[in-house]
């Protein structure tokens, strides 16, 4: 849902292999922010069966899924998790049993995607830098790696993440804004990007040091044209 840049959204829709996919937005990490929900529908409603799950306004009739949220999520082609606080996200999901439902959706082959907190949540360990110094939080553990987002946007995260991995946090993936990791089951299949220079890195300890290895990234746009414009 980058303004004026549909490349990553097009990519995840393409993964569903369906002409008109059922796409459900889960904006928990933002506190179900109205403006975010509006942005989701603007982006997806035209070409998908779009819906959203609200954990804050379930009895207020804001157009969110009512009734059996579990069955609704399991029936989707794509679940799209918005950004915000990953700690708040996980706390609320666990209180509502949504962690369990999403794991089940994953096992059934529903495509799960998200950005920022909506990326971190799928991993076993994640770097959160929401209040005060960055900390490591425990995600859902579908992907047995660690994850750090906004790697280019927030330089302190880069140093902290490398330090964490050096101190025993499991090896994992660091991702710039605009880059996306595509996993099939637990294996990284591909790294794609919506911005020509966005990168992603494998970060792992080696011989007492922490090594950051750039991963090959497939830019989803027209590289020659967009670099000329940039």
């Amino acid at each position, binding site marked *: 849902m980058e303004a004026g840049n549909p490349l990553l959204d097009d990519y995840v829709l393409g993964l569903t292999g369906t002409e008109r996919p059922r796409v459900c937005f889960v904006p928990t990490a933002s506190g179900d922010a*109205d403006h975010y929900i509006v942005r989701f529908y603007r982006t997806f409603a035209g070409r998908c069966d779009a819906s959203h799950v609200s954990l804050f306004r379930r009895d207020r009739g804001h157009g969110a899924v009512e009734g059996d949220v579990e069955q609704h999520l399991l029936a989707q082609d794509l679940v799209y998790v918005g950004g915000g606080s990953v700690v708040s996200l996980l706390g609320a999901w666990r209180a509502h049993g949504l962690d369990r439902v999403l794991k089940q959706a994953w096992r059934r082959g529903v495509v799960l995607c998200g950005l920022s907190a909506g990326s971190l949540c799928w991993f076993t360990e994640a770097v959160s830098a929401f209040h005060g110094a960055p900390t490591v939080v425990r995600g859902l553990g579908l992907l047995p790696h660690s994850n750090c987002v906004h790697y280019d946007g927030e330089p302190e995260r880069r140093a902290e993440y490398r330090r964490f991995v050096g101190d025993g946090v499991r090896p994992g993936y660091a991702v710039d804004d605009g880059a996306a990791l595509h996993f099939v089951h637990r294996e990284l299949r591909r790294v794609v990007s919506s911005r020509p220079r966005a990168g992603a890195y494998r970060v792992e300890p080696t011989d007492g040091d922490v090594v950051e290895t750039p991963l090959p990234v497939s830019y989803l746009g027209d590289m020659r044209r967009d670099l000329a414009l940039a």
Partner: protein
Amino acid sequence: MGGGGFTMEPDNPALDDLVLSLTDKPAPRVLFLPTASGDPTGQITAFYGRFGRTAAATHLSLFRRHGSARSLADIVLEQDAIYVGGGSMRNLLAIWRAHGLDELLAEAWRRGIVLAGLSAGAMCWFAGGVTCSGGPPEPMEGLGLLPGSFTVHADGEPERLPVWLAAVRAGALPGGWAADDGVGLLFRGTRMTRVVSSRPGTAALRVELVAGELVRHRIVPELLGDRAGGPGSRPVPDDVRELRALRYGGRRD
């Protein structure tokens, strides 16, 4: 509060003024926690509208970044009062626990920081309450700083009351209090010292389970302010309040 304060009574500051007066500070530091509703802009704006001039007002978001490197402990423990908004009690407690805020708020309470709130933001302090977080009302455990259970909006959302009474009868919740919109229960430590209201005609209900039977006791609250509730009613200055209390032998806690 069973309901009331700036998010529900934009023209009636009686309950909010009482919260401020409990701090005994001329310009108290008041922190708003809008967690239960997901930090909606409307609530935050209304908070500054009500408290911006009378207090050193700030809010703490657990969904949007402040760009502050300060720890939650520093932010919470420097306050004179902490005011919790309404919304989903289930989300509120789960998110607080995920951030460790449950323990910080208990510490704030032990240090004498005034804790206030309405609806989910009131029930959270008790052993339990009745939440509509999942749609229909259901009993839910709270932080347990205050003994007993508490159910809110007794007049505004009457469907909560029978669920609460059934839970108390079944032993799922301890006995406690129900409050109408506008009614506030004031505790010092774990002892209830006053029942107040911003609206005439409202009540609180005390319910206990005695030998398997519910014993109910209706409490008529002390009406706040100068027949508080009318739009434009002015807060009563502290010295006038004290004078009145002395003259009428009113409750001074």
